[in-house]
C-alpha cells in the first residue's frame, strides 16, 4: 500500500500544531517551518500526480476492508486537485510572508496548514462522511484565515460566511442521514454500486439525498441561489487568503464532479439527469450575477470576487453537461480559473496596500504604476477569458463542448454576454486604477482619507520588492504555461475524464475485483 497517499493530510496536520503551539512566539521560525512544509507538500503532490496515471489507488485506513472502514482514493482527478492546491498554496504563502500579512494576527501559519490539510483531505477521501469531516476542517480553518487580523467589516463578513456554511454543513448531515438510511453505507464506491440497483419507482429518498448533496456542494461552489456569501467573504478577507480561497470554491465543484458522476451520475436510473437539469440554469444565473457584479462593482476586491462568481458559473455550466468532452473542458477551466483568480487577488493586495484604498475612485498613481498596470492587464485578460491566456482556451473548450440543442443557446449566450460584461467591467476598473490615476495630483486626496478605514498598515509607501512580486508574476506565468502547454495538459485531462466516467473501474479498485459487499 502506498503510504504517500495520506501524506498530504498528515504532513500539515502534524506540522500545524507544532507551528501553532511550539513556534507561536517566533514568527521567523513559524515562517520557515510553514514554507518548508508547503514545499514538501508540493513535492509530495508532484510525486502523487506522477504516480496517479493508472488505476485508482486505494488506502485502507486502519486496515479495515472497504466499505467498513474509511478509504482514501488517489486517482488522476484527486492527484490533479491536490497538485493545484499545493502549487497555489506555495504562491499564496510566499506572498503572505513577503507582504507581512502573516504578522498581522495570530496563528496564520497554523491555520494555513490546517486549511491545506482540510482541502487535501477533501480531495483524497473516498468516503462521503469523511468528506463531511474535511468540509468542517476546511470551513473552520478558512473562517480563521478569513478573519485574520480582524477589523469590523471583516468580522461581519466572516460571521456571515461561517453561519451560511454551517447551515450548509447541517444540510450535509441531513443528506448523509437520508443516504445512509437508504443504502446503509458511506463508502463512495459502495454507494455507486448500491445505487445502480435502486429502481426508479423506489428512488424518492435517493433523489432527495442527491438533491440535498448537490445543494451542499453548490453552496461551497457558490452557485445560485446559494452564492450570496461569496462576494462579501472574498471581498473582505485578507487578499492572500482570498487568493487561497480560489481553490475552496473548486472543492464544491470537485464534489459535484465526483459524487454526481460516480454515485448519481449518467446511467443511474434513480437520479437520471436530475443534477444536470438543475445545475445548468443555476450556473447560468450565476454567470449573470457574476457579470452584473463585476460591472457594478465600486471596489476592486468586490470586482474580483464577482468575477470569481462568474467563473464558477462558467465552470458549472460545463460540469452540468456531465459529458466527457465537457468534463475535460471543465477541468481545464477549473485549473485556469483557480490561478487567474489568485493572480488577481495577489496583485490587488499589492495595489491596495499602496493606494491605501480598495475603492475605484480617483487616487493618485502609486509607485510602480506601470508594472502593476501590466500585471493587472494580464491577470484581467486571464479572468475575462481573452486571448492569449488560458481563459480564452478554456472558454473555447467549454463552448465547443456544449452543443446539445437545448443547452447551446442558453449556455453560449450566458458565457459570451458574461464575458463582455466582465471585459467592460475590468476595462473600467483598470482604466480608473492605472490610467485615470496618472491625471490625479498627489496632494488632492488627503481629505478623502479620513472616512476611509485604512486597509493596510502604513509603511507600504515603498516599491514592491522581488519577493512580493514573485508570486503574482509566477501565477501569471502559470497562466501562460497553461496556454502554451494546453495540448499535453488536455491530453492528461482526457485521461482524467475517462477515469471519472469509468464507474466500474473505481468500484473495482476500492471494493476488490468482484465489487460485492
Amino acid at each position: 500500500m502506498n503510504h504517500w497517499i495520506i501524506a498530504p493530510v498528515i504532513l500539515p496536520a502534524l506540522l500545524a500544531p507544532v507551528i501553532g503551539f511550539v513556534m507561536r512566539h517566533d514568527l521567523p521560525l513559524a515562517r520557515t517551518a510553514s514554507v518548508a512544509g508547503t514545499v514538501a507538500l508540493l513535492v509530495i503532490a508532484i510525486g502523487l500526480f506522477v504516480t496517479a496515471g493508472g488505476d485508482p489507488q486505494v488506502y485502507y485506513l486502519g486496515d479495515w476492508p472497504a466499505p467498513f472502514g474509511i478509504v482514501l482514493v488517489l486517482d488522476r482527478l484527486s492527484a490533479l486537485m491536490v497538485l493545484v492546491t499545493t502549487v497555489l498554496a506555495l504562491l499564496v504563502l510566499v506572498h503572505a510572508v513577503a507582504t507581512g500579512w502573516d504578522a498581522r494576527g495570530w496563528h496564520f501559519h497554523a491555520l494555513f496548514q490546517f486549511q491545506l490539510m482540510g482541502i487535501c483531505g477533501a480531495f483524497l477521501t473516498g468516503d462521503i462522511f469523511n468528506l463531511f469531516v474535511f468540509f468542517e476542517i476546511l470551513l473552520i480553518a478558512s473562517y480563521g484565515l478569513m478573519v485574520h487580523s480582524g477589523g469590523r467589516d471583516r468580522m461581519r463578513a466572516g460571521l456571515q460566511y461561517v453561519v451560511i456554511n454551517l447551515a450548509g454543513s447541517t444540510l450535509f448531515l441531513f443528506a448523509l442521514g437520508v443516504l445512509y438510511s437508504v443504502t446503509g453505507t458511506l463508502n463512495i464506491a459502495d454507494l455507486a454500486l448500491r445505487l445502480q440497483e435502486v429502481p426508479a419507482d423506489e428512488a424518492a429518498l435517493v433523489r432527495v439525498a442527491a438533491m440535498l448533496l448537490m445543494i451542499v456542494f453548490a453552496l461551497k461552489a457558490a452557485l445560485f441561489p446559494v452564492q450570496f456569501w461569496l462576494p462579501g467573504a472574498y471581498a473582505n478577507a485578507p487578499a492572500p487568503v482570498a487568493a487561497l480561497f480560489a481553490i475552496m470554491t473548486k472543492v464544491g465543484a470537485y464534489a459535484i464532479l465526483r459524487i454526481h458522476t460516480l454515485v448519481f451520475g449518467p446511467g443511474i436510473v434513480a437520479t437520471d439527469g436530475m443534477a444536470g437539469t438543475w445545475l445548468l440554469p443555476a450556473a447560468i444565473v450565476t454567470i449573470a450575477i457574476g457579470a452584473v457584479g463585476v460591472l457594478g462593482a465600486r471596489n476592486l476586491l468586490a470586482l474580483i470576487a464577482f468575477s470569481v462568481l462568474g467563473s464558477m458559473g462558467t465552470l458549472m455550466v460545463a460540469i452540468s453537461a456531465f459529458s466527457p468532452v465537457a468534463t475535460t473542458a471543465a477541468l481545464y477551466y477549473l485549473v485556469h480559473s483557480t490561478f487567474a483568480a489568485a493572480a488577481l487577488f495577489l496583485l490587488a493586495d499589492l495595489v491596495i496596500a499602496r493606494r491605501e484604498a480598495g475603492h475605484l475612485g480617483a487616487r493618485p498613481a502609486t509607485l510602480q504604476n506601470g508594472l502593476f498596470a501590466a500585471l493587472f492587464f494580464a491577470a484581467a485578460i486571464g479572468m475575462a477569458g481573452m486571448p492569449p491566456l488560458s481563459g480564452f482556451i478554456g472558454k473555447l473548450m467549454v463552448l465547443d463542448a456544449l452543443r446539445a440543442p437545448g443547452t447551446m443557446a442558453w449556455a453560449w449566450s450566458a458565457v459570451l454576454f458574461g464575458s463582455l460584461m466582465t471585459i467592460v467591467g475590468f476595462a473600467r476598473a483598470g482604466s480608473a486604477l492605472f490610467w485615470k490615476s496618472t491625471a490625479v495630483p498627489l496632494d488632492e486626496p488627503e481629505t478623502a482619507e479620513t472616512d476611509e478605514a485604512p486597509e493596510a498598515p502604513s509603511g507600504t509607501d515603498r516599491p514592491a520588492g522581488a519577493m512580493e512580486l514573485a508570486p503574482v508574476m509566477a501565477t501569471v506565468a502559470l497562466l501562460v504555461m497553461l496556454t502554451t502547454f494546453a495540448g499535453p495538459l488536455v491530453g492528461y485531462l482526457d485521461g482524467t475524464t475517462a477515469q471519472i466516467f469509468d464507474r466500474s473501474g473505481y468500484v473495482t479498485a476500492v471494493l476488490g475485483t468482484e465489487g460485492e459487499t
Partner: protein
Amino acid sequence: MNGQEAAVVVNDPSLIIIALLPFIGALLPGMMIRAGRNACAIFTALPTVLSLIMLLLLAPSVMAGQIITVELSWLPQLGLSVAFFLDGLGLLFAAMILGVGLLITLYARFYLSGDDPMGQFYTYLLLFQGAMLGIVLSDNILLLLIFWELTSLSSFLLIGYWKHLPEGRQGARMALAVTAAGGLAMIGGMLILGEIAGSYKLTDILAAGEAIRASDWYMPALILILLGAFTKSAQFPFHFWLPHAMAAPTPVSAYLHSATMVKAGVFLMARMWPVLAGTEAWFYIVTTTGLVTMVLGALIALFKDDLKALLAFSTVSHLGLLTMLLGFGTPMAAVVAVFHIINHLTFKAALFMTAGIIDHEAHTRDIKRLGGLRTLMPVTFVLGTIAALSMAGIPLLNGFLSKEMMLEEASHTDWAGSPWALPVLATLGALLSVAYSFRFIVHVFFGRVREDYPHKPHDPPFGLWIAPALLVGLVVLIGILPHVAEPLVRVAAGAVTGGTLPEFHLKIWHGITPALYMSVIAVLAGAALLAAHRPLDRAWIAAPRPEAKAIFDGLVGGAVGLSRWVTQRTHDGAMSRYLAIFVGSTTLLGYLAWRGGGMPPQTREMLPVPPLVLVGWVLLLVAAGSMALMHRNRFRSLVVMGVIGLTISVGFVYLSAPDLALTQISVETVTIMLLLLALHYMPKASPVESSAGRRIRDGVIAIAGGAGVGALALMFLLRDTPTISDYHLANSYEGGGGTNVVNVILVDFRGYDTYGEIIVLGIAGLIIYAVMEALLNGPAARKLRNTDYSLDRSRDRHPLMMVIATRVMMPIAILVGVYIFLRGHNQPGGGFVAGLVVSIALLMQYMASGFAWTQSRQKIEYHAMIGWGVVIAGLTGAGAWLGGKPFLTSGYDYFHFPPIEEFELATAMLFDLGVFLAVLGAVMLMLYSLSRIARYAGETVNREPMDYDPSADRTTRTTKEQE
C-alpha cells in the same frame, strides 16, 4: 469547384517566424528606449523589416499561384493548431500591415514628444502589428479568433496611450467594448462554422462552402460572424467607436484606421466570401449595411471640423463602400473591393499623417481655425492635396480608378427589385465624398493666411513628411499606371473568390460608361455642395441628431447603474434573507426531487407512543416554540436551549444510546457555561430588526423546512436497510478489541473522522484565541473598557458555598473523568466525554474563584495541550506505518501483572488520549480567551479564592484545599 484545392500547397516554416516576429520584437523597444529614442525606433523597425523581407521572399511563389502553409500542433483535442497559410489575400494584407507599419514607426519617431513614453508606444504598436498579421495569416479559425481579440486588446492600449486624457481612456474603452462584443459574437459564429464543416481549419472550411450555405445553422453563423466584422470595420450602427478612437496619437490613427484594425472586418468578409457570400441573406445584410454606412459616414464627415474626425468618418464611409462591394457577391465586385483596399490604404494613411503634421505644427486640428496653410506649409500642402484628390476620385489618381469601378458595379446591381436604388445612393456617397475631400483641401490650405494660429506653422522636418510622401508616390503611380498593381489585385482577388476571376484590366479609361456620368455628377455636385457649406453647416449644427457617444455612454452608464443597484440590493449582507433563500429553495428542490421517484415499500409499523415520549415531545415543541418567541431575551433563550439539549439527551437514553446521551449532556453543559460567560459582555437583549411581515415569511419557511426534515425522517425510519453497522457490531471485539461498538467506531473503524473532528476543535480554540487578540487590539477593546458592567455584577462574585463545593467535587469529577476514559473501549465513555467531564470540573474552579486565581495554580499551557492532543493522535496513527500497516491501524493485547486483574492495552487508547487532551485544551483555551476579555472589561483580578474569606488571617489554607 475551388481554387485552393487546385493550387500547389507548399510547406514553409518561415511563415511562423514571419507571424511571430512582431511579438518577439515587442520585447525590444521597452528595453532599447534606454539607449535613446533613435535606437528604440530602429529596434522597433528591425522585426518589421525582417518579417517584411521574409514575406517578400515568399511573394514570388504566391504570385505564381502557390499557397504556403505551416502547421504546428497546439491543442489537437479542440482542433486548435498554430496553422498559418499565405495566399494572395494574405500576402496583400501582410504586405500592407508590415509596410505601413514600417512607415508608421518612422513617422512616430518624429511625431511623439519627449514626454511620451516611446518604448511603451512601440511595444504596443508591435503587439498590434503582430495581432493583425496573425489574423491575415491564420489557417485555423480558432487561432484567427485569438488574434482577432488580440487586436481589440492591443488597440485598447494604443488608443488609451495618452492615459491622462479622459478622451483617450473613454475612446479606448468604447473601442474595446464594441470590438470585443463583436469578437465574442464571432466566437459563436466560428464555432458553429467549425461544427458544420467538421474542422476548424480555414482551408477545410473554405472547401465546405456548399455544405455551410445549405446548413440550418447558416443564418446564425452568418449573423454572428458579420457582427464581428461589422463592429471591427465600424459599420453602421457600430460605427461610432471609430471617431472616438481618434483620441489616440495620430500615428496610431493612421495605422489603425487606414491599413489595419478596421480593415480586419473587411478582410474577414473577403476571407469568408467563398463560404458565406452568394446568398440572399448575405446580399441584403452586407450590401445594405455597407451602403447605409457609406452614405451616412460621408454625410457626417462633411460637417466635422476636426481634421481627424473628418478623416475618421471618411474612413467609415469607405469601409461601407468596401462592405457593399463584398456584399454584391459577384467576382468582379470582389476584384474592385480588393483594388480599393489598396487605394484607400495609400491615400488615407497619407491623409492621416498630413493631419498629424498640421496638428503637430499648428497645434490645432480644427478646420475652422485653419486655412491659408498653402504658403506656410508647401510640402504638406502638396501631399495633402494629392491624397485628398485621390480620395475625391479625381482622374489620374488611384482613388478615381476604384471608385469608377465601384460605380460601374453599382450601376448594374438591383436592390429589392429596384435598379435605381444602388446607383443613386452610390453616386450620393461619391458626391459627399468629393465634398468633404475638397473641404479638406480648400478650408485648410486655401484662403487667407491667418494671424491667430495657436502656433505659427511651417513645414515639418524630413522625417515627418517622408512617410506620407512615399504613400502619395504610390497614389500617383497606381493612378497613372494602374497595371502595376494588377498582378497583386489579381492574385488577391483570386484568393477572395476562390478561383475563377472575370476578365478585367485595370486601366484609366473605360470609355463613356454610366459610371463616368455618375463620376462627373459626383464631382460637380460635390463642389457645389462645398460652396454651400456655410449655410448647410449652420443647419446641420441646428438640426437635432442622435449623438452616438451620448447614447453609448448612457447605455454603459445605465448598465453599470442597474448592475450596481441589483448587486447592492441582493448582496447587501442581509444574512436572514440569505438563509431564508437557502432554506426555502432547499425545501422546494428537495420536494421536487422527492416527487420524481416512488417510495420503496414500508417495512416497519409505527410504534405506539408511550406517555413519557409524548411528554418529551411536547416539551421539545414548547421549548422550540419559546425559543422562537423569546430569543430577544438572550439569557432566557439560553435556558430554553439547555432544556432542548437535555430533552434530546433523555431521548438518547430512552432509545438505548448511552454514549450519545453522555456526550450530549457534557457538550450541553460546557456550551451553556461558556455561552453564559460570553453573554456577559454583550447586550442583554436583541433589538427588533425585522418587520412582522418578514417574521411571518421566515416562520413559514422555517416550518416548511422543519416539516420537510420531519417527513424525511419519518419516511426512512419506517424502512430498513442492511447497513455496514452490522459489520461493525460483528467485528468490534475481534478486530477492534473493544466491546463498546460506538467507541470502537470512533477510535478505530472511523478513527480518521474523529481525528478530523478533534482538529476542528483545536482549530476552533486557536481561532477564538486569534480573534480575541485581534479584537482586543482594535476598537472593541476601547468599547469594553468604557462600558460599565459593574451593575451586572454580583456583590458576591465568588461565593463561599460554591468555592467549597467545587473544591470538594473536583477530585471526584476528575476520577470520574479517568474512569470514563479508561472504560471507554468497552463501556459507554471514551476520551471525548472524559475530556469534557474534566473540563467541566476545571471550569467550575474558574467560575468559583475567578480565572486569574485558578490560572496561577495550573502549569500546563492550553495551547500546548491542544497541540499535544493532535500530535499524539496523529503519531499514534502514524505508528502503524512502522508495522507496515496503514495509518490508524490499531493493535491491542491483554496483559496481566499479578496484583491487578488481566487488562487490555490498545493503541486506540493512546489515540483516545489525544482526543482527551485536544478536547480539554480547546475548552480551556476558550475559557482563557473569555477571561482575557473580562479583564479588559475591568474585572479585577482576585488573589483570594473567594470574596469573603472567613479565615482572612490564614490564607494558606486555600492552597491546601486545592491539593
